[in-house]
């Protein structure tokens, strides 16, 4: 589904990604781990199409289609979703209104009419129940005054509403207490399917106890330095990132 080849990217001439190779197939969950500053969030932003990052070399494609020339919204229409590490506030725009606008924008791109109101309401009810979200929450301004946990839960709610082909969860576990983590992880697990894929970016093994990955990759200095199965995450937890750093030096 997603194919990244020898991807180099920089911001303001500062190299951040130095040759990433990654293939994600439908039905798979990949975890990307790594120390601070290793390029995890940059990788997420580059896949989503954030402008300030410049691709210097290499390629990235979704279902064989080159992504580089596509606007972020076009990538979203093709099914790429990013759960932000720091979701932004948009005062005066309710969660419901935002979702309505987003869903109808994607439908329009696919040549469909706006989703009928009753269908929209049904979808909202269904997905908010799944993530144990209070209905009152949905009429609040997007992310404004939300706690860290509420922001993250709202990101996963949006993911559930948009049903993306490829979801990238950027440090979704940060700011979540253990109960919220379990609810969010359960939600994500319900969204796992044979036709979609998920990339989980995290510092810690903890989230991976709930969202069990098929593959784990370790990122260091903008490169994937080690790949393995879920055991790799445990090993990392035990030995720390220094272990990887030392190994790469050797």
């Amino acid at each position, binding site marked *: 589904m997603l194919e990244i080849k020898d991807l180099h990217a920089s911001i303001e001439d500062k190299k951040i990604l130095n040759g990433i190779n990654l293939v994600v197939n439908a039905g798979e969950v990949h975890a990307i781990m790594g120390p601070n500053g290793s390029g995890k969030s940059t990788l997420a932003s580059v896949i989503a199409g954030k402008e300030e990052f410049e691709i210097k070399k290499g390629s990235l494609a979704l279902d064989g289609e080159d992504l580089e020339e596509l606007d972020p919204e076009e990538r979203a229409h093709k099914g790429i979703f990013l759960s*932000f590490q720091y979701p932004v506030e948009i005062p005066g725009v309710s969660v419901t209104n935002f979702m309505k606008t987003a869903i109808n924008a994607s439908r329009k791109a696919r040549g469909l009419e706006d989703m009928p109101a009753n269908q929209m309401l049904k979808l909202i009810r269904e997905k908010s129940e799944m993530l144990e979200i209070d209905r009152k929450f949905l009429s609040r301004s997007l992310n404004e005054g939300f706690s860290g946990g509420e922001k993250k839960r709202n990101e996963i709610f949006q993911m559930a509403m948009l049903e993306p082909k490829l979801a990238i969860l950027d440090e979704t576990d940060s700011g979540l207490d253990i109960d919220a983590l379990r609810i969010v992880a359960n939600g994500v697990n319900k969204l796992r399917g044979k036709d979609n894929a998920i990339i989980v970016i995290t510092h810690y093994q903890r989230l991976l106890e709930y969202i069990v990955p098929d593959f784990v990759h370790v990122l260091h200095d903008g490169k994937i330095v080690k790949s393995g199965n879920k055991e790799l995450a445990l090993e990392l937890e035990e030995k720390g990132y220094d272990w990887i750093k030392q190994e790469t030096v050797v």
Partner: protein
Amino acid sequence: MAYTEEELKKELETKEYEYGFYTDIESDTFPKGLNEGIVRAISKKKNEPEWMTEWRLEAFRVWEKLEEPEWANVHYEKPDFQAISYYSAPKSADPNKSLDEVDPDLLEMYRKLGISVDEQKRLQNVAVDIVVDSVSVATTFKKTLAEKGIIFMPISEAIQEYPELVKKYMGTVVPTTDNFYAALNSAVFTDGSFCYIPKGVRCPMELSTYFRINEGGTGQFERTLVIADESSYVSYLEGCTAPSRDENQLHAAVVELIALDNAEIKYSTVQNWYPGNSEGKGGVYNFVTKRGLCEKNAKISWTQVETGSAVTWKYPSCILKGDNSVGEFYSIAVTNNFQQADTGTKMIHLGKNTKSTIISKGISAGQSQNSYRGLVQVNSRAENARNFSQCDSLLMGNLCGAHTFPYIEAKNKSAQIEHEATTSKIGEDQIFYCNQRGIDTEKAIALIVNGFSKEVLNKLPMEFAVEAQKLLEISLEGSVG
């Protein structure tokens, strides 16, 4: 490619004025210049009674002695008042005509503006008094309103038919001596609307006036007088658009509202006059005096959505004379390219237990300057006066400016006055967040701007909130290709 702020700014700058067409109608226009003779001629043209002519002349003499105000945070080339023609009436206008007989060019113009009279008629809930340049050409719903005793007509007709009402109230809230532009308006106003709601009557529909400047080189001097008698209610909306013209056009209107005991007036404005081109050439000078007087337990709400004009100088105000009276001001002012706006309100608390609320939202883009200027004044006898003010500014790009000039004068210790202000910028992060959810940049800006303006948009009558929302989008976006 995704939009950078730089590209966004360029896009905004190249946006053309939507209503920049010019309808070719034969006009009956006075020679340029202003003197007592012109004032008399206007009065004669309107078949006015002697007292009205005298009233105008008195105002003219006051105006001659006044100086143009210079304290506002706006810079422009001052109009040459002797180079303006003070009367322009479409020749085909005749208030007694049925709509079928109206000049098809005029109807075409309404159609372009999206306010076709036929359509308005079908809207049922909206009575429209349309003003093209200076003369009202069509008034609908007069009969329905007449059954309730409501008078809604061009002010020129009211002067003929209800001289005692006009005489009693005109100039009582905005005296001819009030300021330079109010004096000018008093001398040369050619038309406008008059509205009277009798005691205890709740006006069953929104009353609405569309103003429009058409003839090049003409000024427009509207005069509006709304009187809500005891325990009555009325909601009034004025909407404005103007065609694209090269020279600056002057607009100096006066609006007076009178809310007698227990009455309520809601006055909403959507203003979309030509703002000038992207280099700051042309555009309307909008120098308007709007003020309302509240008697006991009365309430006046001003709601305005201001997106047009090259220069705006406008402070819809409330004099809270009666005890327990309430004044409200809800405003959205959008400036783009080289537009300049200095707008706000004055809340004058005279009575006991008077309350006022000010919510002002300024949105600046391009190289525009957007200023909020507001006065909250509590008189020594105004026990327990309360005011809440909130001024929020939203900036787009790095070249525009937002300014806030709040003035507070409290002469009574029991006064409670609160003022809150925020300034924010539409961030690339916000736009990227929306993009990532599939929302393009144009829609994203509309969403963010509408969210920012929501508190004020919610105050508009339902029928117009949607239009206003569209207008905000048009003013800020243009078509992103």
